[in-house]
């Protein structure tokens, strides 16, 4: 059932087996899974069913690092930031869970096998039509054509699935079920302001909730799960007396995927893979939900070049380059045999680029290395509920830029070696990290079996606090290059099983 906190009254307490803070992808999927285990859940959501400026303003934060799109990178309403999700996703590859010697602070305490059983279920939650993500060479539109990228082994074709029929809004999907649920009470317009613990901070006893316009609620639960996103999870822990921060780990290693419009790929052979529709990302539009296929740096390449996760997809993108692809006479190089000048096809939203495309933009999604200096802290300013605002210090390292340059150039070489296309790069030398492109915040309550190296254990339970858990991508020690939503939901489903076990025991 839904309860509007504004209508509850002055003070009221709720009790439940589990209190979940945040009604986004992590929190909603967790709540629904806990209900299936027979547990009573209070789901605490700051917003309502529609965006509200006053509620969104509670996310005010200062940015002291690299420029960061603070106002738009997260949504504070029922359904969470998934309300502007594009619906593109895929699981983390097994390689991403491993410790990489060349990446400090890398390595998950769990392996791919731990999440594998949950990915199909997560796909069902998100309406991803196919739970297999392997590239199938047999699906090539045309046979007998040049190989995709030669035999370098540096880059491999990869598939991103898109939710069907549109970008799934998990809030909408479960709204009726929650409304009718006897075990889930979703408090709307209820803002978690503080976790109140026992004297030794070993157990959360009460969760305080503030309501805009006045009023305070309290929730007592056997277990509390923070599922409010990587920034807010850290902020809430820090603003609750530094809960879980005995080793100064809360808020550190804040990361986001870098989205880069790297340049262009020029197609020079009629049999190029780039002429296949699936390799050309369509502009988003209603009714057009085609899976995407691109390329990612292989583990062998990343080991050899000591690089980070790197993926690439071609599409009708416009890389930022004032000169444009025809600069300095090079445009002349791009004439076809018929003398026609190479040009980008005219596309409108929803168009699939036509097969006579000669050049396409290249979009890279890349991993940011864990950086303890990239962190969330508390500012001195307070929001309308008296809570201290977050300070976002997004800091990149030379390793991030080096990996981007190395991978982009190697991709260009692989394309050249294949002999059917050429790459022109732009904008990878100017230290332009296009932030917040996906709002894929991660890393602020990272998992580790060692309390000195992480905030939570391998199940997402906060070290040193018996009944406090964290859900969502803030658990990620590293984020790889894959869009994270599927992994976020898979982790929540796994955590629900664990919570049910703990509850029974």
């Amino acid at each position, binding site marked *: 059932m839904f309860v509007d906190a504004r209508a509850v009254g002055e003070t009221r307490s709720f009790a439940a087996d589990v209190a979940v803070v945040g009604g986004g992808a992590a929190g909603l999927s967790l709540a629904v899974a806990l209900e299936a285990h027979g547990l009573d859940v209070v789901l605490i959501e700051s917003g309502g069913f529609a965006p509200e400026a006053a509620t969104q303003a509670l996310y005010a934060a200062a940015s002291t690092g690299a420029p960061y799109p603070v106002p738009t990178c997260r949504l504070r309403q029922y359904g969470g930031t998934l309300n502007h999700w594009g619906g593109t996703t895929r699981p983390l590859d097994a390689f991403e869970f491993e410790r990489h010697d060349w990446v400090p602070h890398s390595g998950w305490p769990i392996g791919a096998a731990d999440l594998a059983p949950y990915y199909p279920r997560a796909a069902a939650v998100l309406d991803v039509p196919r739970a297999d993500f392997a590239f199938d060479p047999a699906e090539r539109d045309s046979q007998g054509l040049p190989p995709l990228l030669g035999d370098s082994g540096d880059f491999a074709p990869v598939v991103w699935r898109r939710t069907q029929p549109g970008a799934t809004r998990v809030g909408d999907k479960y709204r009726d079920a929650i409304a009718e649920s006897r075990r889930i009470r979703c408090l709307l317009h209820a803002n978690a302001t503080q976790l109140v613990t026992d004297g030794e901070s070993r157990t959360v006893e009460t969760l305080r909730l503030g309501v805009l316009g006045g009023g305070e609620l309290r929730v007592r639960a056997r277990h509390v799960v923070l599922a409010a996103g990587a920034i807010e999870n850290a902020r809430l822990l820090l603003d609750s007396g530094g809960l879980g921060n005995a080793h100064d780990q809360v808020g550190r290693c804040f990361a986001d995927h870098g989205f880069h419009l790297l340049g262009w790929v020029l197609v020079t052979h009629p049999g190029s893979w780039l002429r296949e529709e699936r390799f050309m990302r369509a502009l988003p539009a209603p009714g057009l939900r085609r899976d995407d296929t691109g390329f990612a740096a292989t583990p062998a390449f990343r080991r050899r070049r000591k690089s980070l996760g790197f993926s690439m997809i071609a599409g009708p993108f416009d890389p930022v*380059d004032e000169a444009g692809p025809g*600069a300095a006479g*090079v445009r002349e190089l791009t004439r076809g045999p018929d003398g026609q000048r190479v040009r980008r096809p005219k596309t409108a939203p929803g168009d699939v680029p036509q097969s006579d495309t000669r050049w396409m933009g290249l979009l890279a999604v890349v991993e940011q290395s864990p950086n303890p200096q990239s962190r969330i802290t508390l500012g001195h300013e307070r929001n309308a509920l008296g809570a201290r605002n977050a300070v976002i210090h997004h800091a990149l390292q030379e390793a991030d830029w080096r990996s981007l340059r190395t991978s982009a150039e190697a991709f260009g070489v692989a394309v*050249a*070696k294949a002999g059917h296309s050429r790459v*022109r790069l*732009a904008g990878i030398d100017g230290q332009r990290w296009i932030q917040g492109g996906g709002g894929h915040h991660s890393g602020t309550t990272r998992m580790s079996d060692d309390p000195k190296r992480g905030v939570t254990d391998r199940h997402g339970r906060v070290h040193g606090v018996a009944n406090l858990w964290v859900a969502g991508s803030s658990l990620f020690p590293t984020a790889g290059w894959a869009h994270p939503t599927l992994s976020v939901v898979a982790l929540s489903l796994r955590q629900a099983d664990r919570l049910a076990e703990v509850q029974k025991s």
Partner: protein
Amino acid sequence: MPRIATPTPGGSSARRNFLLGTLRVAAGLALLRPTAAHAARTPGPLARPDLSTRRIAGLGERLAREDRPTAERLAREVAAELPLWLRLAGTRRRMQAARRLCLDPRRVAADLDAGRVLRVDGWILARSEVALAAWAHQQT
């Protein structure tokens, strides 16, 4: 900028004219067949037979502007590799010879495999391709 010597074809003796003419025809025939076959097999942006000297030279011009010492060194290397008798054949023939020399698919692939890669105006190119562009710029 050092330039490749380009002696005027022709000489005082009829015998020399005849020999040069024969050489030109032979070289042209020898170059035409593999170039066409090569283009049909593995065309790349710089390997197209339709690319004019001017177009390739545009890239060389860019390189010369960005990194003149490198452009000059690469151009000298190409010039040194060209057989003496082809230097006498005029711009078009010299260009064909240089194209064949630098854009041999095996040579381009070897460059790429060995990491002999240069970025000019953003283009990821094999070193031999850039050398051709640098040399072509000097010729025009």
